[in-house]
C-alpha cells in the first residue's frame, strides 16, 4: 500500500509499505477514505519533535471503512464506516474512566522519555513519534487501529467525509478552547487566530451561546 513516511527534517516520502496486520485481539484495520494534514504534522516535518524513526508513517486525522477486526472487537463489523480519534485510549484506566481519553495511562507504551520530559505521558497518538507510542499513522491506504472498542466512532448518517474528518482532531481542538472559556449566553468572546482551529473556536463559541465573537488575526496566508 501507499503511505507517507518520515525520513528526516523536511524529508517525507510517499512509499510502498507492507499493509498493516491485526497485532492485538481488539485491533481493527481500516481502509482509509479521507486523511488530513494537521498543523502539528508540520512539527514532525520541521524536525522539532524528537524520537522520530526513519520510515515512521505519519498522520493522525483519518477515517475510513473497517476491513478486518480482531476477535475481541465487539460492536464494529467489516464494512462499517468509522471516524478515528487521534488519541488512542484504553477505556479502562483512571483517566479514561473519567473521559479524559487523551491522558490515557496505558496506550503510550513507550512513555519513559515522555515522563522524563513532561512529568507524565499523554495517551498514544497515531503517527506522532515514539514519545507518543510510535504507532503507525493514518496517512496511508490502510491503518491498524488498536483498542478499537474505545476510540472509533461508527458513522450512521449519510454525511460526507469532508463534513466528518474534522471530528478526528481539528474541531474538538477548537471546541475545547471555547469550552474552557465557560461561555454564558450573551457573552462577547474574542478569538485570537483565524486559521482552521481558530475557525472552529469561533463557531464553537457561537454553539456554546456567545452573542458576539470578535475574531482577531494578523494578515497571513492562514486567514
Amino acid at each position, binding site marked *: 500500500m501507499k503511505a507517507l513516511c518520515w525520513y528526516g527534517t523536511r524529508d517525507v516520502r510517499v512509499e510502498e509499505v507492507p499493509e498493516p496486520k491485526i*497485532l*492485538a485481539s481488539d485491533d481493527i484495520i481500516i481502509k482509509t477514505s479521507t486523511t488530513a494534514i494537521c498543523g502539528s504534522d508540520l512539527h514532525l516535518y520541521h524536525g522539532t519533535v524528537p524520537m522520530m524513526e526513519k520510515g*515512521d508513517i505519519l498522520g493522525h486525522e483519518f477515517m475510513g471503512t473497517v476491513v478486518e477486526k480482531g476477535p475481541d472487537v465487539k460492536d464494529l463489523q467489516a464494512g462499517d464506516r468509522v471516524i478515528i480519534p487521534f488519541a488512542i485510549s484504553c477505556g479502562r*484506566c483512571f483517566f479514561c474512566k473519567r473521559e479524559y481519553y487523551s491522558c490515557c*495511562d*496505558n496506550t*503510550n*507504551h513507550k512513555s519513559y522519555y515522555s515522563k522524563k520530559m513532561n512529568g507524565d505521558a499523554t495517551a498514544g497518538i497515531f503517527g506522532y513519534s515514539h514519545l507518543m507510542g510510535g504507532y503507525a499513522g493514518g496517512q496511508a491506504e490502510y491503518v*491498524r487501529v488498536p483498542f478499537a472498542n474505545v476510540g472509533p466512532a461508527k458513522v450512521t448518517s449519510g454525511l460526507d467525509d469532508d463534513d466528518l474528518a474534522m471530528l478526528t482532531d481539528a474541531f474538538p481542538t477548537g471546541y475545547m478552547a471555547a469550552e474552557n472559556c465557560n461561555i454564558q449566553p450573551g457573552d462577547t468572546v474574542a478569538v485570537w487566530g483565524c486559521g482552521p482551529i481558530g475557525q472552529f473556536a469561533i463557531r464553537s463559541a457561537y454553539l456554546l451561546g456567545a452573542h458576539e465573537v470578535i475574531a482577531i488575526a494578523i494578515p497571513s496566508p492562514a486567514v
Partner: protein
Amino acid sequence: MNTQSAPGTDNTSDVQLKKCVTIDRTAEELYEKWKDFSSFPLFMEHLVSVRPAGLNRTHWIAKGPGNTKVEWDAATTADTPGKVIAWKSLPGADVPNEGSVHFDPAPVHRGTRVTVTLSYAPPGGSVARWAAMIFGEEPDKQISDDLSRFKALMETGVVPTTDGQSKGNN
C-alpha cells in the same frame, strides 16, 4: 501514572532501583498475577523465561548483550498474599540480584500502589556492563517500562504493542 526513582543509587557497589506505580486493581489480583513468575516475560522485556525449579525456587533466563543469554536460579524469600513477594538469586549467579514487590492500598479507592525494588551487586568490572546483562541497557528505563506494561496488562488485559506494524524501509 507516577513513577519515581529511589534516592541513593550507589554506582560503586550495590545498585538499587525503586519504582512505584498505581494500578486500578485490588492488591489480591495484582499479587496473584505477580506470584506467577512465569508471566514475567509478558511485561518484562529483558526476560526470556522464568520457570519453577522446585520448592520456592525459580530459574531465570534474561537477554544479555548482543544475542547472549544470562541465567540464574533464585529463591522466593518472602511471600505474603496480597502484601509482598520477594526473591533473591542463589549463590553462583553471575550477577547476584534480589527484588521485591509490595502491594499497598492507594488513596481514595484508586487501586493499589505497587512498589518494586531491585538491587544487584556487580562482581567487579564495569557496573554498566553487568547491569545491562540483567536489566537491559538502561535499567531505570527498563524497569519503568516493565511496570507500565504490567499496569496495562492488569487494567486492560493486554500489553500494548506496535511490533510488526507497517513502516517504510528505504
